[in-house]
């Protein structure tokens, strides 16, 4: 996988520290019992023990240092690689053409950025870890063979027994959790239902009654919870027996060796330590689990990175008043060979049944997508040749469901007070707890308020305004005021709407049908066609 390699390359500096630390740590873990065993034998035989104790202390010190440094370098390296992946993903996603981005749900993308990127950054250390973690148990087995072949056999036998016990454990717990989750879900469902009527509940003082109603399944939850502990108790009691059985069986076999003189007391001690480390062989599956999680997380991060971005040209807009020209514009199965010229400064309504291609038309003018063939020109220059800066300064776009971005609600419209006044949202903004500086996340917005903010955000563009059904949620008074401001304006205005009142204000109505321009004429002319009237509301 390409991204796998990139992640490894990105973290190569800290990953090599991680690798060295893990290998050193594993080496120390294997050497220490040997040294300690030799020290014990020295104590027993009365030889000088100081050198061995100094060696052991040195090994312990080294393992602590390695552990400490390795863990810190790894954790901070993972943090760095995570941030690198996240930034890359966010930048790429923002540069995609919106049509390409649309295939991912928002919650899904957030999970990729926050959860999956962090897991994917574990790819490096978990690869290193998988190798390093297998060294101590495997090494223990080898060293145990060197001490006493029979003791090694006892280790394997003990492991087989404990594996059987652990398998039974996994099967039991998953079953018990289901009943608990069911009861918990029942309470959550009642609570979230009540939250939809929270204003009613507060106004009628029925909170206590509601609490009683919501908490009805609580005794069931408690009963299911206790059942879970009982199941856990049974299985983990079995598991707690498995460890001693492994160690004791190795000790017994090695002890027999002591009696027959094959094994020294120090080696007996070392054998018992290797048995304890070797019992960790079963834990290796955990490391492999992290590895496979990192792998699938990487795949999830990579998928959106493969989508192509919407590039920009480098030209500035030329002189002009906002004339738009469609030349043989075709978008696969959505728009067919559209040819059209919109005079600079005119007010154009775009109408048509749903699915007729209105939103595609708006997206093309706002250059949120490129046509498959043909060109759209602003004052004689193809949109795709314009630089991002000059394109976005010239053309503004407002949507049916605008999504706002910014720390404060003012930021979301670049604190454009003139735009807020024009689009009737200034009064609303200045009544918020901190006015324009109210954090966006703490500003409850109705659909109409959101649309007016979306309109205010667009208002700063200097040549073309594109409104894609952007006034559909406005109440009548605000609708009237905004429509009036639009009518009085002198920029080119492309308004996608099926509202007759708006179409009536336009200089020209472009009537789209099945991806083609069915007619382009003033509203008063088209009005006589009953099929046109049927399109409008």
């Amino acid at each position, binding site marked *: 996988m390409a991204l796998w390699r990139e992640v490894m390359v990105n973290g190569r500096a800290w990953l090599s520290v991680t690798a060295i630390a893990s290998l050193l740590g594993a080496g120390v873990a294997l050497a220490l019992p040997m040294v300690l065993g030799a020290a014990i034998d020295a104590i027993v035989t009365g030889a000088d023990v100081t050198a061995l104790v100094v060696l052991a202390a040195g090994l312990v010190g080294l393992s602590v240092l390695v552990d400490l440094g390795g863990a810190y370098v790894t954790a901070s390296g993972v943090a760095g690689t995570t941030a690198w992946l996240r930034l890359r993903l966010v930048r790429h996603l923002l540069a995609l053409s919106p049509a390409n981005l649309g295939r991912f749900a928002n919650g899904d993308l957030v999970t990729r950025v926050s959860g999956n990127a962090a897991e994917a950054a574990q790819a490096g250390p978990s690869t290193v870890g998988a190798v390093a973690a297998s060294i101590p148990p495997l090494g223990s087995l080898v060293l145990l063979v060197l001490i006493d072949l029979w003791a090694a056999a006892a280790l394997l036998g003990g492991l087989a027994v404990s594996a059987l016990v652990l398998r039974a454990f996994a099967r039991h717990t998953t079953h018990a959790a289901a009943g608990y989750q069911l009861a918990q879900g029942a309470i959550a469902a009642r609570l979230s239902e009540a939250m*939809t009527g929270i204003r009613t509940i507060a*106004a009628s003082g029925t909170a206590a009654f509601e609490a009683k109603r919501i908490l009805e399944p*609580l005794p069931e939850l408690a009963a299911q919870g206790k059942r879970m502990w009982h199941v856990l108790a049974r299985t983990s009691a079995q598991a707690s027996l498995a460890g001693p059985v492994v160690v004791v069986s190795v000790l017994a076999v090695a002890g027999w060796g002591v009696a027959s003189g094959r094994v020294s007391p120090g080696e007996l001690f070392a054998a018992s330590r290797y048995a304890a480390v070797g019992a960790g062989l079963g834990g290796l599956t955990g490391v492999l689990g992290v590895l496979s999680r990192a792998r699938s997380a990487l795949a999830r991060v990579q998928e959106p990175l493969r989508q192509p971005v919407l590039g920009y040209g480098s030209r500035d807009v030329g002189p002009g008043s906002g004339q738009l020209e469609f030349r043989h514009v075709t978008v696969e199965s959505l728009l067919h060979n559209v040819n059209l010229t919109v005079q600079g400064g005119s007010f154009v309504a775009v109408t048509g049944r749903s699915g007729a291609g209105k939103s595609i038309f708006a997206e093309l003018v706002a250059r949120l997508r490129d046509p498959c063939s043909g060109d759209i020109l602003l004052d004689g220059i193809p949109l795709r040749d314009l630089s991002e800066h000059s394109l976005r300064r010239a053309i503004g776009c407002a949507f049916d469901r605008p999504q706002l*971005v910014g720390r404060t609600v003012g930021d979301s419209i670049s604190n454009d007070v003139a735009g807020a006044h024009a689009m009737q949202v200034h009064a609303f903004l200045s009544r918020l707890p901190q006015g324009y500086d109210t954090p966006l996340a703490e500003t409850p917005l109705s659909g109409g308020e959101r649309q007016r903010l979306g309109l205010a955000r667009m208002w700063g563009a200097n040549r073309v305004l594109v409104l894609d059904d952007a006034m559909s949620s406005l109440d009548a008074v605000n609708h009237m005021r905004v429509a009036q401001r639009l009518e009085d304006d002198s920029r080119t205005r492309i308004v996608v709407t099926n509202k007759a009142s708006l179409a009536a204000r336009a200089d020209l109505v472009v009537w789209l049908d099945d991806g083609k321009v069915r007619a382009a004429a003033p509203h008063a002319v088209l009005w006589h066609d009953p099929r046109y009237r049927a399109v409008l509301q």
Partner: protein
Amino acid sequence: MSPLRYGLSRLGRRPLLGLLLWSLPELLPAVLMGIAVARAVDDGFLAGRPLTGVAWLGAVVVASAIGAVGSRQVLRRLGDLVEPVRDDLVQRVVRGALADQTDTGAVTRLARQVEVVRDTFAGLIVVTRAFLVAIVGSVAGLLSLSPRLLVFIVAPAIVGLAAFLATLKLSAARIRESVRAEERLAATSGMVLSAARDVAATGKGAYAAELAAADIMRQAAADRAQAAVSALRTLCYAFAAWVPLSLILLSGRSLVRDGLSVGEILGALTYLLAGFQPALGKLMSGLGNSGLKFLVTLERILEVSAVPEAKAKRVKTGATAELSKVTFSYGPHAQPVFTELDLSLRPGDHLAVIGPSGIGKSTLASLVCGLLRPVSGTVTVTGDCVLIPQEAYVFTGTVADNICYLRQSATFKQSLAAIRAVGATELVDRLGGLAGQITPASLSAGEKQLIALTRAYLCRAPIVLLDEATCHLDPVAERTAEEAFMRQGRTLVVIAHRVSSAMRAPRVLVLDGVSADLGGHGDLAERSALYRDLMLLSGPALLSDPARSLDPAGLLGDPDGFDPGAAARLGQHTGKMIANGAVTQEELRRDGASR
């Protein structure tokens, strides 16, 4: 209350005692393991009696089996300790959510955070108990082997543990930061990515990426800080775990000279390496990970779910409301929604409130029924209010449960009368009568409103506030419902969604965001420009222009609550439920004609 104090105070005495008593069997292997190794080596393997050695080791397995029986009982009792705490937290979260109208995270808190506390609380009890068992077992065993060795182990352990506990506060702060950074990152990236199209359209790609980048880097910094603290923790563990070993080995010669056998040294090392060290490691990682997670999560739950003292509610039977010089704003830096508003409602009054959306109509309703308090001025209400908001509240249960929600004692006859008066008969019949089950998701917004209106009609509060409570009904159904309330003669305030609804009230309050204008239709037509605008939008002037008369829109309110379900059902119930804002031409004509 601090989370620690909360956790300790919630430990039930009886289950805790049971837990401790059932820990006694587990002490058996903990005490025996070192002694058994010592005896097995000294009396068995080294003495040339391997069978004796194996017998001693076999004793460890038997002791472990007895210990396993104990640990099973211990875990069974864990539920008795943990589940009551979880019960209490669930209740707190639910009560807290119901008390705080702005709380949007309650369901997540219930499903995720309470579970985290449950698991970590159990984890804390388990590691602490296991540590105590290991310590008591090792100490007892070492005492019988060589009391001198005890000092070697206990002294460094105390120093290491103390240092570790000192780092916990710092760790908690780091974890708190990290959790907050994670929440912020998720929120920011959610906002930025959901707005990718808008970001492209406004050319704000760099700004949006910068917003996300700031939180991404903050989270990375928080993670690094956390890693630094956990390095400190490793150091504390290393000290407590490994210093005793060096001490025992260094003094090994003198110990043997004082008569300690090889087996006894091996036994002591067994206590150290197989009993004490793993328990210490688990305790430290338990406290450092799940302990802190417990602390931080519980802290958050207790903080958010604090319920203010409930006031005893007295039944008030008056029917007047008096607003005097009421000024209200949503914050000290906000423009006021009302400035010195005077409004007086007499028994049986019928008032309509009109104005553009977002101008403060719902705020007025909230002030009257006491959900909000004025910044200055007084609100005196002598009777109970029933407020039916735009988003009608219907819950899973029977029709009767829903309708008698505010009057549990209502009789069958009274309920049926209310259903008939409001015009919900057809709906209730379809649902299977009063005993029929309601599944809120299967009702359209308009159907929900009919249920809520019936509920308000049935209850006995003398003041009724309808806050766009009929906006999803068609004009005919709206008229039926409103007229039912008018016939009851209760004090009625209608925040009107359509002009037709405002026309039914003798008095109208016009809110335009700057001033409030109260009067009859004639006065207002003369002096209020907004009132004239609103009439113009729906009046006969428009009927002459075919295009504009077709303009839809809820004329007075914000038609945000368009309910796709309602539209989808239009085919089945023709003319009954209409999506919000779909005012028909007949409706406009009627409005024109009625003037």
